[in-house]
């Protein structure tokens, strides 16, 4: 087994080490599909909706030839499928006064409207529960990010946009010209770019039985257009259909950029619609983003979180819609993907076993973060790393500095060392990103990185103790429906997998009559605590875990926080939980299926998150909460939920841990058109 070469400088063309790794593995033309580089919108540091936000973007350029490594600085770009990318995106922004055109045609809303922004995948726009009594769509505008580029609005970087009148025209076209008549759903979905059978890498979820985004949007805003006419009229939608997971890169690295674009698009579109409608007071905006990934800074150093911070600050500056985003806690609680430990000063060491599965056709990533904030300008990493391949003997620790890499022979692995600052640049935190090539290459007989037990050895080179967190990154398949992505995990003999009863062990046991929730997460190395979705482990968004409606048991898969905010903008657990399962034999909760009129059960915190969004909307309708208000703000109001909603009598009298449920469990989910047996 080959060993790592010495740490050396590695001037990068691109900002993200994930993108840099992706470029080394695939280049633009030889990956699963041809790709085109698109500027990451996060570079638009001075954010002003309706104002001159395009300038800094245009200045970046898009020609990789102009960005020679080490000469032109870093390039904040990410690869997008060439078939979906707008080839003239940057040129179209030359001379523009904002991202969106001033003279666009925007739908009109009334002052009594709440706009729910839903960012998800496979959202069926034609469902009757997303339409008004006259059959017209309640979706004010939608952006299908993964749809092939067919000459859409020039400001759109990729995909296709449908405004409300476009959707209504398509609905009419596939309803014999009458919006109240039955819809040819398959024809509509294809015409709207929601289902595409022409490409192997395209979305087809709506052609199946269940569709994640449709289920989510059904919970957030689905309503009978006649029987719940008032709700339908007042709650309008802005929808972003994300591209298929295969577009996010193998470690989900590009999802951040798609989400940033999606959030900006919703905020911009909301502002444009508000202005076109001539409203003096901005109608409230709630965003449901039932997405996430595991590894990351879990603070504002992360691309997504950085944008959430910007947006949450921009609303105060610009007086526009308040940034209210609700995200799931995540479902990785039992996945053994998180470790947090302390290494003692002056050479203290710790070893973490990392299992990489055979037959894995995708890269594997582990992020290692030193928790302590260090002074800006610190370049020497306070801890050192030695990553031992299966069957190899440990190497020697060597000092790394920010910007350096070390590599395995033949490009089978690379470790990046970076000192990562937040927006204000007042500190840095050190991150190592370990990248391993797939262990299986389908063609060419190329030998991959070895599967088996890798060992990550950490040594403290500092004179003070350091707390270190390691997270396995979420793994993504390279084509829809493939099972070639295998989630690697940490392994530790002291990790308790099961309770004595045989039940999969959660962070805490759930015992009636116990004084406090018995702690089962006592392993010294691999912990459930800290598995929160890296997009949701911050105070800029509300974070929703899941519990079981029948007896109140926290969902075992629902991720746990570490118990306290590690940094000022972090969070120690979810805000609250909402139902994500109906009962022990009734996995998941019911909402809209892929076919209009169908109801299906889906399980996970994506759906408890959607319940929370709906609960906030219902409270706005009842006049109990204003999302535009700071008192209480969204998180504070959600925290009142466990007190507002009565605790069901049938729940066990069992204590729960704050790391799992935050301020408590809200026993509420939207009314549903059918009941389970």
């Amino acid at each position: 087994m080959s060993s790592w070469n010495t740490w050396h400088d590695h001037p990068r063309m691109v900002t993200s080490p994930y993108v840099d790794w992706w470029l080394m593995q695939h280049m633009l033309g030889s990956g699963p599909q041809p790709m085109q580089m698109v500027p990451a919108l996060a570079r638009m540091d001075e954010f002003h909706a309706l104002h001159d936000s395009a300038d800094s973007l245009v200045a970046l350029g898009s020609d990789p030839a102009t960005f020679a490594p080490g000469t032109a600085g870093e390039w904040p770009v990410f690869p997008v499928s060439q078939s979906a990318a707008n080839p003239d995106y940057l040129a179209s922004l030359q001379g523009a006064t904002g991202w969106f055109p001033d003279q666009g045609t925007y739908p009109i809303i009334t002052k009594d409207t709440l706009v729910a922004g839903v960012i998800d995948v496979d959202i069926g726009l034609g469902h009757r529960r997303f339409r008004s009594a006259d059959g017209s769509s309640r979706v004010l505008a939608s952006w299908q990010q993964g749809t092939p580029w067919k000459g859409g609005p020039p400001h759109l970087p990729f995909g296709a946009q449908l405004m409300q009148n476009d959707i209504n025209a398509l609905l009419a076209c596939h309803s014999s010209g009458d919006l109240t008549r039955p819809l040819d759903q398959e024809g509509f979905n294809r015409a709207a770019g929601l289902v595409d059978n022409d490409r192997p890498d395209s979305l087809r979820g709506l052609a199946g039985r269940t569709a994640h985004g449709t289920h989510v949007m059904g919970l957030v805003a689905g309503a009978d257009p006649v029987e719940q006419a008032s709700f339908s009229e007042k709650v309008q939608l802005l929808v972003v259909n994300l591209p298929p997971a295969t577009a996010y890169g193998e470690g989900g690295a590009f999802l951040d950029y798609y989400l940033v674009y999606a959030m900006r698009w919703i905020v911009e579109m909301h502002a444009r619609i508000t202005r076109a409608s001539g409203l003096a007071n901005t109608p409230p905006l709630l965003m449901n983003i039932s997405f996430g990934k595991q590894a990351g800074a879990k603070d504002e150093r992360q691309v997504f979180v950085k944008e959430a911070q910007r947006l949450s600050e921009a609303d105060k500056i610009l007086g526009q819609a308040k940034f209210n985003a609700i995200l799931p806690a995540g479902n990785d609680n039992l996945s053994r993907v998180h470790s947090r430990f302390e290494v003692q000063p002056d050479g203290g060491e710790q070893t973490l076993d990392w299992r990489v599965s055979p037959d894995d056709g995708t890269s594997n990533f582990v992020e290692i973060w030193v928790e302590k904030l260090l002074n800006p300008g610190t370049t020497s990493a306070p801890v050192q790393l030695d990553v031992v391949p299966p069957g190899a003997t440990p190497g020697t620790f060597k000092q790394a500095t920010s910007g350096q890499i070390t590599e395995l022979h033949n490009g089978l692995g690379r470790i990046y060392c970076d000192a990562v600052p937040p927006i204000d640049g007042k500190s840095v935190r050190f991150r190592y990103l370990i990248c391993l090539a797939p262990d299986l290459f389908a063609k060419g007989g190329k030998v991959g990185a070895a599967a088996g037990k890798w060992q990550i050895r950490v040594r403290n080179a500092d004179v003070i103790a350091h707390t270190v967190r390691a997270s396995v990154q979420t793994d993504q398949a390279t084509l829809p429906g493939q099972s070639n992505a295998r989630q690697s995990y940490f392994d530790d003999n002291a990790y308790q997998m099961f309770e004595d009863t045989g039940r999969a062990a959660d962070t805490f046991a759930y015992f009636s009559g116990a004084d406090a929730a018995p702690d089962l997460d006592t392993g010294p190395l691999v912990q459930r605590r800290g598995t929160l979705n890296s997009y949701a482990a911050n105070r800029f968004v509300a974070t929703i875990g899941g519990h079981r409606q029948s007896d109140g048991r926290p969902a075992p898969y629902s991720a746990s926080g570490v118990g306290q905010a590690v940094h000022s903008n972090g969070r120690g657990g979810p805000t609250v939980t909402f139902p994500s399962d109906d009962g022990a034999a009734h996995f998941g909760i019911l909402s809209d299926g892929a076919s209009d009129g169908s109801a299906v059960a889906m399980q996970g915190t994506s759906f408890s998150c959607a319940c929370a969004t709906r609960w906030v909307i219902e409270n706005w309708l009842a006049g109990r909460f204003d999302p535009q208000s700071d008192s209480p703000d969204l998180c504070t109001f959600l925290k009142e939920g466990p007190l507002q909603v009565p605790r069901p009598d049938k729940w066990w009298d069992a204590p729960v841990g704050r790391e799992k449920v935050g301020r408590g469990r809200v026993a509420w989910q939207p009314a549903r058109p059918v009941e389970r047996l």
Partner: protein
Amino acid sequence: MIQESLAGYWDPPTGNNSFDWDPDPDDLDYLPSNRRIEVVLAQILSRFTIESDAASVTVKCDGTKICTIQKPTLPTLNTQMKWLRAYADLREDRSTEILVQSEEIMSPFSSVRPFDLPKRHVTAEMLTLTQEVAILIEQQVKHLCRSPRPVEFSDRVMPMLDTPPHSTYPSGHSTESFAIASALSMLEYGETPGESLSADRPIFHLAQRIAVNRTVAGLHYPVDSAAGAALGCSVGSALAFIASGTPLRSFSFDPNANPEADFTRAALETVIKGKSSSKTPAPLGILQKRWVKARGEWLRRDGRDPDTGAGV
């Protein structure tokens, strides 16, 4: 009563039919498939010999070496146990196909190349024959290489299926899968195993997956699969040699050369390249007729001659 009432008076040989009777000894069309296989099988097996010494087993066809595999040492198998641990993580993903393949492995191949159709019944028969030959040879080789199964090393393997009583090395599933793939690639494409793998033919990827699935199930080490690949390719190639005179090829594998090795795609390439032999062919007539029929069942689109496999 029906004979008496309809036949009437009967006094043979008076009134007997008159016909010619000069059966072709190479013609087996008159037999049902299973009987044909029984007739041919015995004759085919007489062409093989198996020899063993302390360190290796050698299989010969018509006196020429076609496969040599070294016997694994206990330390080698002990080292290989790490792969049993690693592959156990795939059980949930693979369980359905593993259970199917524990019963039979022909249908996975026919789903890739459709030989389970009436128009390809001779191909199906040739592949059944190939598997029969592979089983009989592999059991001999297993006995001579007798090696302990993974469960002997650890009670944590907990295989998904009952562990068979015979030797772990070489893997029977691997031997049979690669024998079938080799015979099929010769019938349809006229390609050696190495050529088919280079051409990215899915049947060899399938053979590898069937073999690896036995490691996932907790029954075999990767070296069992690699040895089975060498043995299976040699059996499939030898069958083509016996049937149609295509050049013999020899294959080999040494599990102790790299005890750490997994049975990956790259490792497979090394094993199944093989070496050609100049052995003079002596086709078995009764097999040759059926083999030619089987070749004719595949529509050629690449200009190759259906009888010889030669390029045009």
